[in-house]
């Protein structure tokens, strides 16, 4: 019996409704709250994308009811150019921050990291609770920008200066909306820093007896490495946002140079550097996209292993590769700035680490593929989404070869090729990681299985649908279709409009298919088949909890002791072809560690 009271700020099981469900210190509740936030955010973000796609296919179409979303953005229900850009900015910001950082990392990580390391909770439960509510406030502040008189900011999620910094004179969408955007993101950063604090200390200090670092499941490694990235990346974006707000409202000139003339008026700023914003933003921005994908890689690895009944070809190589991605991610950010006016030597300098980062990415994919070889692959919704993740990551990844070189980037920068690239890796692969995690862990979180038929239907429609949507983006990009255009005015883009219309139809259909998932979530929550403690015959500690869902302190009276490596599949034990980490049974084990 371990006395871990010294390590954990013990919190007794809550009794009041508020303490149980609203201001909860329990990492499991916090994880579910984050999932709920991401869920709402993804529905909003997806809805915005539908509006955007309809407009792109049929620019003058009057979308019924659109005028309800904005007082002046849709006269006669036809979207104005600025409203399109505002919707686009909000779509991107909501998706990148409140879905892709929140769901795979904050939601699943909060729920499962303490359990997978064998702890009762995270060491700073109050900070953890704060991290959720701070993130929530960030979301509210962002959405509030829909309700100010000149609407949300239209500068893209990248908010390049000086457009973002000069204030309302820059045009509609450059007023209060920018301040709300920057404030929302700064608040979000604080929330995530509090989260990273907990994740790192949990992984380093809260592991139960026998849980060495190398015995951690890959999902835990994914969350740990991501939280290290988050710590450094969010800490840089936050001051950047503060400086942007100051330029916008306080007349400073961090990012606004002299002699700008807007609307025939000379602007009062002077001396600032627009490239400075880009450097600060992308120093955060590139690690951010790895923050969005690495948890998914961890989750997918974990789900696949359970369903392959076989550990990865090399557990250590995967971990080292995740870590290599994290470290290299800080050295590549300039590839977003190849033609930005930055010193062309810097462009070359940044391209080499960018090309080198292909190596760990490739090794990860090859390890996954190599592990599939000779496995006993079980097909269920979770494993399908995991395999889909691999396919999407390959597709999204190879387009990176083009964007990693400045010379080819000349033709592809700011075109739909880039949009296709990041949607495949983030909008699809990372989302598939979230789906895989959901279908896999739903039984543990709610004690019920999700409906497999609906799940598989959701998978098929999503897999085919997202390829139909995003593969053509690459063709559009090769043809020179510029991004962030609300309509295609240049002559040479006219012939691309039918392809846009095809994409729109695919997007609306695939979007509709997501409603199957929504229905499945709610239906299964209420009426799903009751789940056992270990429906997938998994080995890691989350499957060793005494009850399902786990009790308040995760493991009841006694914390587990870990006897085995995380993925002892393909062994002969009393339970079958696997032995659980917490089981003291002696079996001939399968391991690539000595």
């Amino acid at each position, binding site marked *: 019996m371990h006395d871990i009271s010294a390590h954990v700020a013990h919190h007794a099981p809550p009794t009041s409704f508020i303490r149980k469900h609203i201001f909860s210190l329990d990492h499991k509740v916090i994880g579910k709250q984050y999932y709920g936030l991401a869920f709402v955010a993804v529905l909003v973000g997806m809805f915005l994308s539908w509006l955007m796609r309809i407009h792109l296919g049929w620019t003058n179409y009057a979308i019924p009811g659109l005028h309800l979303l904005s007082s002046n953005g849709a006269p006669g229900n036809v979207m104005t150019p600025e409203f399109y850009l505002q919707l686009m900015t909000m779509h991107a910001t909501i998706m990148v921050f409140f879905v892709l950082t929140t769901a795979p990392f904050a939601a699943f990580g909060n729920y499962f990291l303490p359990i997978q390391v064998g702890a009762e909770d995270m060491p700073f439960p109050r900070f953890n609770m704060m991290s959720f509510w701070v993130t929530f406030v960030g979301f509210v502040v962002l959405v509030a920008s829909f309700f100010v008189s000149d609407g949300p900011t239209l500068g893209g999620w990248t908010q390049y200066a000086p457009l973002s910094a000069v204030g309302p004179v820059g045009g509609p969408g450059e007023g209060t909306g920018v301040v709300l955007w920057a404030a929302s993101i700064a608040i979000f950063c604080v929330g995530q820093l509090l989260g990273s604090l907990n994740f790192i200390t949990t992984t380093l200090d809260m592991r139960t007896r026998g849980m060495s670092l190398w015995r951690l499941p890959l999902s835990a490694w994914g969350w740990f490495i991501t939280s290290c990235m988050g710590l450094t990346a969010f800490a840089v974006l936050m001051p950047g946002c503060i400086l942007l707000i100051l330029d916008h409202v306080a007349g400073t000139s961090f990012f606004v140079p002299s002699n700008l003339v807007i609307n025939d008026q000379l602007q009062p700023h002077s001396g600032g*550097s*627009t490239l400075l914003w880009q450097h600060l933003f992308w120093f955060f921005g590139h690690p951010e996209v790895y923050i969005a994908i690495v948890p998914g890689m961890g989750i997918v690895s974990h789900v696949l292993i359970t369903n392959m009944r076989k550990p990865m070809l090399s557990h250590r190589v995967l971990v080292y590769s995740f870590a290599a991605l994290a470290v290299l991610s800080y050295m590549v950010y300039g590839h977003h700035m190849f033609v930005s006016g930055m010193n062309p030597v810097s462009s070359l300098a940044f391209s080499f680490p960018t090309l080198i980062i292909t190596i760990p990415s490739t090794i990860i994919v090859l390890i996954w593929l190599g592990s599939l070889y000779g496995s*006993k692959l079980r097909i269920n919704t979770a494993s399908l989404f995991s395999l889909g993740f691999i396919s999407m990551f*390959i597709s999204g990844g190879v*387009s990176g*070869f083009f964007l990693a070189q400045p010379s080819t980037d000349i033709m592809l920068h700011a075109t739909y090729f880039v949009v296709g690239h990041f949607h495949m890796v983030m909008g699809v692969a990372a989302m598939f990681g979230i789906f895989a995690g959901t279908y896999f862990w739903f039984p543990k979180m709610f004690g019920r299985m999700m409906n497999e038929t609906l799940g598989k239907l959701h998978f098929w429609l999503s897999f085919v649908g997202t390829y139909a949507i995003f593969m053509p983006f690459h063709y559009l990009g090769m043809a020179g279709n*510029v991004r962030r255009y609300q309509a295609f005015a*240049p002559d040479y883009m006219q012939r691309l409009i039918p*392809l846009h219309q095809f994409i729109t139809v695919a997007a609306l259909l695939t979007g509709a298919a997501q409603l199957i998932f929504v229905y499945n979530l709610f239906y299964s929550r209420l009426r799903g088949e009751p789940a056992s403690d270990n429906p997938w015959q998994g080995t890691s500690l989350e499957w060793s909890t005494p009850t399902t869902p786990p009790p308040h302190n995760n493991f009841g009276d006694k914390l587990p002791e870990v006897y085995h490596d995380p993925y002892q599949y393909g062994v002969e034990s009393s339970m079958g072809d696997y032995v659980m980490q917490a089981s003291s049974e002696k079996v001939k084990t399968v391991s690539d560690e000595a």
Partner: protein
Amino acid sequence: MAKLFAVTIFVIAILSAIPILQHTWWMAPDISTHGAPIDEQMSETMAEAGISFLASQIILAFFIWRFANPRPGEKLKNFPGGAKTMLWAGFLLVGAEVLALGLFGVKAWANIYFVPPAANAMPVQVQAGQFAFYFRYPGPDGTFGSIHPDLLSEANQNFFGLDPDHDPDAKDDIVTAEMAIPVNREIHLLMHSKDVGHSFFVPELRVQQDFVPGLDLSLHFTATKVGRYEIVCTQLCGLGHYNMKAYLSVLSQEEFDNWLRKQAALQ
């Protein structure tokens, strides 16, 4: 279902490759002197990316086909060579190749950015502003007049903020809303932004470069084919970003001289 999934992956991979191989939607033909290395880089990268894409998707599909839903009694197997094979493949096959790509690509980039403009390159200035491009030719004196931001006024059509009354260099400057250049003549393009960030992109010319407010950048290039092309803005600059474009006419030297004369008369 696994076999259907495997076939689906295979089909999608092949279908995705077809428009690329057929160049169904593709870059416009190159009309520049520096574009050939870029196009070559593009082809090499496409070959490498394409092979990696097809190979990995097909392997994924094959492994799903072969190893899903195993027969009872089938044993687990390890990939021959284990992780070491993957490490070698990762470092050698892909790593060395992408680095080679990168090294060869240096030339394509260096050609554009590390070679100074020729001494007799024709200077043209382009100014980007919300939401139009304006161009300026220095006129017979070969010198551009200074830009006075306080005089800049769209309302008065003083797009460059010139002060011809006090600035002799500005007297003969020719300001136009369309750009024209003589074919086979190197152009030294001076880039200036009046307000926010913009970008100058002409796909046929293999040129894309952001304007940086506060920083005067320049590019140089030579067009080899007469024709009418479009310059589009690719850096989000506000609501009119989608409509911010200008025509670029590449003319024979004689036609260009005529055009310039006509424009000068309109000042």
